[in-house]
C-alpha cells in the first residue's frame, strides 16, 4: 500500500513539474497525462494489467511495465546522448568562431589582417554546421 502511495505521489509530482511548472505545448501535455493516467491505473489495479500483458505475450502485467520502463529509459538515454553530442558540436562551432575572430582582431590591430571577404564562405559554412 505504501508503495502505491509513493508511486502515485511520484506521478503527481511528474504531472506538476511537466504541466504546471513548464509551459509545454498541448500535444505534449496530453501525451504526458495519458502516460501518467495509464501508469496510475497500473499502480492502483496492477492485476488489471495481466490480461493486456498476456495479450502482448508477457506473463505478468508487472513484467510488461518493467519492459516498457526499460525501453523508455533506453529511448530517453539515447535522446539525451544525441542532444549532448549536438550541443558539443554547437559549442565547438562557437568556440572556433570566437578563436578566429579574436585572432583576426589581434592581427588587424597589428596591421596584418586578411581581407574580410575571404573569411565569409567559411563563416557561412560554420553557420550551416551550427544549424544542423
Amino acid at each position, binding site marked *: 500500500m505504501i508503495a502505491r502511495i509513493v508511486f502515485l505521489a511520484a506521478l503527481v509530482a511528474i504531472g506538476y513539474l511537466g504541466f504546471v511548472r513548464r509551459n509545454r505545448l498541448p500535444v505534449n501535455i496530453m501525451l504526458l497525462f495519458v502516460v501518467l493516467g495509464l501508469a496510475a491505473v497500473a499502480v492502483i489495479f496492477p492485476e488489471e494489467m495481466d490480461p493486456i500483458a498476456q495479450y502482448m505475450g508477457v506473463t505478468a502485467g508487472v513484467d510488461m511495465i518493467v519492459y516498457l520502463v526499460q525501453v523508455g529509459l533506453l529511448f530517453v538515454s539515447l535522446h539525451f546522448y544525441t542532444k549532448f*553530442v549536438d550541443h*558539443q*558540436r554547437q*559549442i*565547438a562551432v562557437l*568556440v*572556433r568562431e*570566437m*578563436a*578566429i575572430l*579574436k*585572432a*583576426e582582431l*589581434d*592581427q588587424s590591430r597589428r596591421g596584418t589582417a*586578411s581581407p574580410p571577404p*575571404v*573569411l565569409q564562405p*567559411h563563416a557561412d*559554412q*560554420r553557420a550551416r*554546421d551550427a544549424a544542423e
Partner: protein
Amino acid sequence: MDHRQITWVVIAAYNEAAMIGRVVSGVLDDGWKVAVVDDGSRDDTAANAAAAGAVVLRHVVNLGQGAALQTGIEFALGRGAERIVTFDADGQHRVEDLPAMVAALDDADVALGSRHLGGTEGASSGRKIFLRAATAMSNKMSGVKLTDAHCGFRAFRATIAPKLRMRQERMAHASELLGLIGKSGARIVEVPVTIRYTDYSKQKGQSPLQAIRIMFDHAFRR
C-alpha cells in the same frame, strides 16, 4: 618552386608551454607561416607561441585535438592558404620534412607522413607493434591503404579541405579524417618522415589504452 608563401602550418597545442616556443621558432625560422591553436591550455602555451612569432588562435575551453586542428585549418583557409600542413606541438615532427611534405602536393591532394616509410627515433618496440596493429585496423575501416594511419604530420591542398571537415572533436579525428579522405576521392601520397619520440613527447602522447575511447568515439559519435 618555394611553397612557403602559399602554405600555413597548423599546430594544435594543449598545455605545451614547455615545448611550443621551440617548435614554432623552428618552423618560422625555416620560412613557413604558423598558426597555433591553443586548445584551452591552463599554462602559458598561448603566450609562448605568440612570443615565438606564431599567429595564435585561442579556444576558450578545451575541445580536443580534432576541433583545434579544424579551427586552424579554417583560419588558414580564410588567410588564403593554398596548402595546409598539420604539425605536432610536442616536437615529434621535424622541420626538415616540411618541404618534402608540401612539395608532394604538386601531384596529390593529400600528403600523409609515414614513419614506416621514413623512420622513428626513440620508439619502443611495443609502440611500433601497436602502431602497426592500429594501421591494419584503420586500413580495414577507412578503406584507404596506408603504411602509417595515425601520423599527425599531414598536408593537403585547400581545394580538398571542404571535403575533409572533421566533426570528431577529440582523438578519433585521425580515423575520421582517413574515412573522409577515402570518400573524397582525393589523390593521396605517403611521404617518408622521421618521428622523434622524446621523453617529453612520450609523456604527452596517447596511451594505447586511449585507443578504446578513440574507437568508441569513431563508432558512435559521427
